[in-house]
């Protein structure tokens, strides 16, 4: 098999000097890094290092006190989540945030929400142009179901699915928005080995087939080192390393942060 020729392009998103605090707690302290087109970037760090906060700043869920986020050349201080989603940033959450009572299909369909143009009136009547539109969206959703191999649970309420599959459905919903940048918050937390392997394959496939840029947070070092092109390491809200997985693995500061250091 030939190694895929990566097409890593220009800077897609750039965070500059982000600082975020909750009261006296400094969650993120003057962090800057960039994400390039088509790459898989991992943000790692011990618990409480500020990883999730960082993702939340990128898609506008949190508003940092200082610093800017530049996405597709537009520099913002405060990002609006709705605006971020409309401009192609999709995400999944650490604790699954699906509609438990709705089916897999409907959950993924909600990911198409921003792309639906017909008003409530037509949608409610389900007549005329709304039908054509829904059929087009359904086709797209079916593509994603096929891609993620979840045909067998298409009509099952997600609350009844095992954890690993729920995570996959959540990825499906994020993909339904056809994102340019996909933010994954611990996509493999709590999974068994097989589920992790599946998820890795899906992440790589998404990156490869759709050219989606991916920024993920993960605890499992093995996974991170295997699938990412670049790794950013946070510790106590600061960036302590940024580079290829090999470089980061050998970095003394990272080793100290993860394994503890003798004082």
């Amino acid at each position, binding site marked *: *098999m030939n190694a*895929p020729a990566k097409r890593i392009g220009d800077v897609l998103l750039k965070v500059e000097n982000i600082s975020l605090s909750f009261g006296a707690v400094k969650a993120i302290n003057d962090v800057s890094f960039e994400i390039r087109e088509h790459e898989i970037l991992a943000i790692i760090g011990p618990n409480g290092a500020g990883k999730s906060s960082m993702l939340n700043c990128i898609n506008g869920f949190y508003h940092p006190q200082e610093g800017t986020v530049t996405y597709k050349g537009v520099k913002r201080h405060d990002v609006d989540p709705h605006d971020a989603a409309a401009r192609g940033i999709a995400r999944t959450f650490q604790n699954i945030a699906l509609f438990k009572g709705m089916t897999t299909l409907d959950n993924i369909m909600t990911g198409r929400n921003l792309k639906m143009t017909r008003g409530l009136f037509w949608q409610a009547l389900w007549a005329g142009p709304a039908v054509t539109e829904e059929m087009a969206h359904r086709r797209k959703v079916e593509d994603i179901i*096929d891609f993620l191999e979840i045909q067998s649970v298409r009509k099952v309420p997600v609350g009844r699915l095992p954890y690993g599959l729920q995570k996959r459905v959540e990825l499906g919903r994020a993909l339904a928005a056809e994102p340019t940048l996909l933010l994954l918050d611990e996509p493999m937390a709590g999974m068994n080995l097989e589920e992790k392997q599946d998820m890795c394959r899906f992440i790589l496939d998404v990156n490869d087939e759709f050219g989606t840029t991916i920024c993920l947070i993960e605890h499992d070092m093995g996974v991170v080192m295997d699938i990412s092109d670049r790794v950013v390491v946070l510790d106590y809200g600061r960036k302590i390393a940024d580079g290829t997985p090999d470089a980061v693995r050998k970095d003394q500061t990272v080793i100290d942060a993860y394994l503890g250091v003798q004082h």
Partner: protein
Amino acid sequence: MAKDAAKSDDTFPKLLIRNASRIGARPAYREKEYGIWQTYDWATSLANVRAIACGLAALGAKRGDKIALIGDNRPRLYWTIAAIQAIGGVAVPVYQDSVAEEVQFVLDHAEVGIAYAEDQEQVDKLLGNMARCPQLKTVIYEDGRGMRHYDQPFLHSLAKVEELGRKFDAEHPEFFAAEVAKGKGSDISVIPYTSGTTGRPKGVMLSFDNLIETSRRSVAFDRLSESEDILAYLPPAWIGQHYFSFGQAMVAGFCVNCPESGATVQSDLKEIGPTFYFAPPRVWEGLLTQVMVRIEDASWIKRKMFAYFIDHARRVGLGILEGKSVGFVDRALYALGEVLVYGPLKNVLGLSRVRIAYTAGEALGPDIFNFYRAIGINLKQLYGQTESTVYLTIQSDSDVRGDTVGPPAPDMEVRIDDAGEVLYRGPGVFVGYYKNDEATRSTKTADGWVHTGDAGVFTTDGHLKIIDRVKDVGRLKNGALFAPKYLENKLKFFPFILEAVAHGANQDAVAAFINIDLNAVGNWAERQGISYSSYQDLASKPEVYGLIRGNIEQVNRDLAQDPDLAGSQIKRFLILHKELDPDDGEITRTRKVRRNVVAERYAPLIEALYSDKKEIDVQAKVTFEDGRTGTIKARLHLADAATFPAAMKKAG
């Protein structure tokens, strides 16, 4: 069917052309894609087969070439098989779950030059074997998912092959028709490899005549028409699936439905509602368990209703299905049950429209078998093998029994030789094993009889019973036939018996070890108010011995009905103090008893069974889950069971 019409349609490509012209607009294949059933009619199928056939020719395929196919049931897989045959090639289907080495063996042995793979997973297996199979020159794949970085020049997508074919066809418009016309009935159409539990798999050469002649007979036998629907969900490399979804489908012109994936079979079954359905025993068992579990969770009134009507169906359902005389009140109640219970139940199972259903392979418990028949599903048994082109014996609608595999199929001769082995001769008999004349000679006699390797007996009215593999069948000292697996299966059909081991080869009588089912017997003991402290304690209770004795005597009573097996009634038994356990090497992980291990470990017990002792002390070594070993001491009782005089053999 007119005789000469039948003569001229002697290959599958010719049948395909016949179907396309006669029933061109009827559905031939359905495939669920993107959540919707996509239908392809016979005319479209012919056009696609033509394109693929020409594409294969453009890639250099010649008459007589063997082309391997590895993948799940898809219309395109079946089209490719027909396309291969259209240009005079031979299809070699490979099990899609084979590991790379098994695939390599087949590719190598069949000298495969072109291989068709369903998706990336299968392509990877083929590519991994490229170096070791130098004759493999071309790989065709159907699903392009994950294939974007594969740029080997010998790798082609099926879409590209079709495109090549259409171009080739435009340049050589006579090619397809001429190639199809060259084919004749005696040509080899397919070489399925037998799974081979012992030794290397063998390639079974089947001609068009084998498949088409037997299909014509079985289609007529079950009155299958072009309006049938079947669900193709078993491996296409298995001869049974090939026969149902290619052989019979082409002959009868019915529609083959391909499920979306292995995990969606149950819901796809419900959506399609097949009219002709085959499932191995484990599927029937699994469905029933699923039903029972869900009924347990249902409301009180539903449970009562279910219990009442199923009970009623068990009493009168078989009679109604078989057209026997049943009283008016019973019929009315059954009709009410159909509305309230049976109908909805069949609908949930996806079996509402089933006209004919089959099971084969392993033994299916009479309780389960009769359950399906009682609720109105025409479930029948058949027996066959790859070498006989599936049907060897088959039950007709009016004469179905749970404990036989039926009388010989139309035009099939079946006999039992002196060793008890089943032999057959007929139109389905295979041409030979590919490149293995020695195996062919030892299986197929000069006058066309084929050895099955299975031991069987005929009932007095001509039904065949398969009792065991020939090599496992022994004889008692007095010469009576002793088939341990047959006895054990009969015992295991009782819910209280988890496992059984029968002894008797070269002994005076048959004796058995019994393992009780802790859940079932424990539950029974609770209801009887019998207290017990452990498995060992429960197993030694006189009441439990009484319960098991009842089961054994029931088996003996059944055996007595059968003149050939009446001699192997179980005279003595004991209930083991521990479960046979794979950790102790007594059974395999797939729950097959390791006879020699058991015989060796429990030699003193077997000896005691053939003495007149009433009880025996044992010490058994057990392996605990953490790997430590210990010993269990126990005193086992040896018990007698009543035997019954054999039924008289009918004259002749």
